[in-house]
């Protein structure tokens, strides 16, 4: 039986055709995944189904009946629920208050909090979604907050549940919890639409997969009849190579090292405990770990934003006494920041202004403090072309580029700075598959050129695929040093959770 049908949906935004005659049919009781690169139009399509956008043309069928969905209220009545990319919870409210908000049980005119709590207990038991109904939402981890969202739509009687990139904000453990929940909901006969651009997740959870590209539905495939490679090709429109052949080059001299580094974080807690390692030329050292286990402290200590309580940081064998970004950079460090918008770019600056940041004081971009626009323009034009930034308009503001292209601007800038050590902190965070591929190629290229790279990443596959050596960070300590050949993702996972140690023998 068809739970949801969309026929020939067209949605035109001022600048883009976000949905181009999309036709889909989703069966009751299946998990249907919608994949596509950022900007492919997945969210738009689902927002149309949920009544947040009105399509320019096209029809929607819910359980066989043609429906005219104008507002989210309409879709809730039709038993459609949506968990958005950004949660819509009120942090100061309790779990119960959030769940019943908008549809509260009453005793006369009075809000019946006790009955609300027992209602929440009831559905949480029914679907096996454990939760404390009286806890404040602000005290809950993201994974549990998402559970509150799910309970909220279940309580409204949702039969069709839409999840827009639910895993983007989750840790790997939380993701597997969520997948258990999704499977349980499916057993219960619910229909689930799961949006993602991570192919391994889709291959794990979905029954059928719809692939979108530039607003068009490229096709629908059964999971059992496809693989990640084929999906990637459909998504991007060409072959994508994420598994790069390891450039097996011999590591050279040490370019960067930290020894016995102890760093207190902003809360005054020791976030990095006695960490020592070194990075050599022509080597990628990967730091694996669950977020919040010392990665931020490490990066901030290298930049000089946090002062180590003890320990040394050296570049090219020389200890840096006064650590500032300027001193690190003049001695040969480049840095791909984990947070593009905050650290990587000045968003209201144009591409041409961003691309020279850090070398703007050098000839020929400026001479005795006066900027040379001609040289800057020529340089920016060349770099945008070289890095295939789209649109290649040097006068566009950084904020107007998509995430992938913003990252390319950052790469263009950092790579053109003179360096022999690269600190790459989550360089593919939030990027779609095409841009991710670009970053991977870039890193391998750098390595071949003789740069030593410290790669900090939360993605295990990335660490495994690129690194020559892997260090596992857990609770501020390095609990393991392995090579990708001698380890497995499972073993790394155990070390990341602090369940196993494997230290190098000196």
């Amino acid at each position: 039986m068809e739970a949801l049908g969309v026929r020939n949906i067209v949605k035109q935004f001022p600048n883009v055709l976000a949905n181009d005659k999309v036709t889909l049919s989703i069966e009751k009781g299946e998990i249907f995944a919608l994949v596509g690169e950022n900007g492919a139009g997945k969210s738009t399509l689902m927002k149309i189904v949920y009544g947040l956008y009105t399509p320019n043309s096209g029809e929607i069928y819910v359980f066989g009946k043609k429906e005219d969905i104008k507002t989210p209220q309409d879709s809730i009545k039709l038993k459609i629920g949506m968990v958005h990319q950004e949660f819509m919870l009120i942090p100061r409210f309790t779990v119960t208050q959030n769940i019943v908000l908008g549809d509260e049980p009453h005793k006369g005119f009075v809000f019946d909090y006790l009955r609300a709590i027992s209602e929440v207990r009831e559905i949480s038991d029914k679907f096996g979604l454990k939760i404390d109904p009286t806890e404040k939402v602000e005290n809950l981890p993201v994974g549990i907050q998402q559970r509150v969202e799910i309970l909220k739509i279940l309580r409204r009687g949702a039969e069709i549940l839409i999840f827009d990139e639910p895993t983007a904000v989750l840790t790997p453990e939380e993701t597997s919890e969520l997948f258990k929940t999704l499977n349980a909901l499916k057993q219960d006969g619910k229909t689930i639409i799961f949006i993602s651009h991570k192919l391994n997740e889709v291959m794990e959870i979905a029954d059928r997969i719809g692939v979108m590209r530039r607003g068009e539905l490229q096709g629908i495939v059964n999971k059992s009849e496809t693989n990640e490679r084929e999906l990637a090709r459909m998504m991007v429109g060409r072959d994508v190579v994420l598994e790069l052949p390891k450039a097996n080059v011999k590591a050279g001299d040490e370019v960067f090292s930290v020894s016995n580094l102890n760093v207190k974080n902003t809360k005054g807690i020791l976030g990095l405990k006695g960490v020592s390692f070194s990075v050599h030329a022509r080597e990628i050292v990967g730091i694996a770990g669950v977020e919040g286990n010392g990665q931020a402290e490490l990066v901030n200590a290298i930049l000089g934003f946090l002062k180590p309580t003890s320990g040394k940081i050296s570049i090219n064998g020389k200890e840096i006494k006064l650590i500032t970004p300027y001193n690190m950079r003049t001695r040969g460090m480049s840095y791909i920041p984990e947070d593009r918008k905050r650290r990587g770019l000045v968003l209201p600056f144009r591409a041409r202004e961003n691309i020279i940041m850090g070398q703007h004081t050098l000839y020929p971009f400026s001479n005795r403090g006066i900027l040379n626009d001609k040289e800057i323009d020529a340089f920016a034009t060349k770099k945008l072309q070289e890095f295939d930034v789209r649109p290649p308009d040097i006068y566009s503001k950084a904020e107007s580029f998509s995430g992938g292209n913003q990252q390319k601007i950052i790469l263009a800038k950092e790579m053109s700075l003179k360096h022999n050590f690269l600190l790459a902190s989550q360089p593919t965070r939030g990027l779609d598959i095409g841009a991710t591929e670009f970053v991977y190629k870039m890193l391998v290229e750098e390595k071949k050129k003789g740069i030593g790279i410290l790669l900090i990443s939360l993605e295990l596959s990335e660490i495994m695929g690129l690194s020559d050596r892997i260090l596992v960070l857990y609770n501020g300590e390095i609990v393991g040093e392995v090579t990708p050949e001698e380890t497995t993702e499972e073993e790394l996972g155990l070390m990341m959770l602090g369940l196993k140690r494997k230290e190098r023998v000196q």
Partner: protein
Amino acid sequence: MKEFFYRLFMNRRREKYWWINLLVPLVSIFLALIVGGIFIQSTGRNPFLAYRLLFNASGLIPGPYWRSSFAELLLSSSMFIATGLSFAIAAKGGLFSIGAEGQFYVGAVVAAFFGYSKPFAGLPSIIHIPIILIMVMLFGGFWGLIAGYLKAKRGIHEVIVTIMLNWIAFYLIQGWLVPTGGPMAAKVETGVSGTPYISPTAKLPIILSNTRLNISIFIMIAVSFLIWFLLYRTTFGYEARAMGHTAIYNMEAPKVSGVNTSKRIMQIMFLSGAVAALGGSFIVLGILSQFPPVFEGGYGFDGIAVALIGQNEPLGIFLSGILIGALRTGATSVQIARIPKTFPQIIEGLIVAFIALHELVRYLLLKLAKAKKSSVTEGSVE
């Protein structure tokens, strides 16, 4: 020169909807005049008469007595422009300085001191005036630097420090230096209260005969240009603007790129203080000829409004400084229409209020622009 005009006009056009930056203040001014008119009407007076009186006496429109009101207009405008620029320099660099008031006082008192005291008082104008102006900017810059230092090295918010420095300047000057018996007060025998009068060689040269109009307006034209140049054509301005754009993010993007933000913060605050103090010197060197016992300030705070209306851009501030100068010059004449002379300040307040609403106005205008554009191009999208 060609390059300069190209940069000034052509580059702007690369900005989508660049004209909004111009339109927002213009629309705000227009709305303020209308709302002000409604106020007058609702009290049973004639708004058209009021505006005619106001603008006829403002110095903006040629007419009888134009010469002198035009002179007064530019005279006060140059001070508004100075304090407006002072605020804007800091704002561009991501700093919210409200210290122009105190720096204006410092500038005025320093100008008076170097204007009357020996051995400077004996020098010819051509040497005397530059010495005064340099000392004024050094002291005013120092006053700003204190806030910059505390912000850069100690992380103390510049708003708090600049407010305190305003009061410190006020009490140091009005409570100690200038009153009778104070170190800078004129001798009792001379019968002068306040500081002694400055030497004639310290007076700014008059540029329009039979008026008080002096070179201060030329100085501000040059300063406005220099600040535009500094902000948009130099690495200093480039870094300052990057800091301003990322102030909400703790200036992290410029910092990780190696910009020494502490040093820049101090330089920006120095510059901001120096320019405000320059405005303070004009009132002594061009109008009062001394630091009087009771000093009517306010220029520093008005500078914030000027900067807001001018959108923190040097050219915009120059124009809005002229506008505020005009409103103040024409103020007294509205009394003929039985309207209090503070009325023009209500208009100023309204303009500022509408500018503060500019996000809304901007949003509406952009929506309008986009709606029009998409209706033109509909169907031509691939």
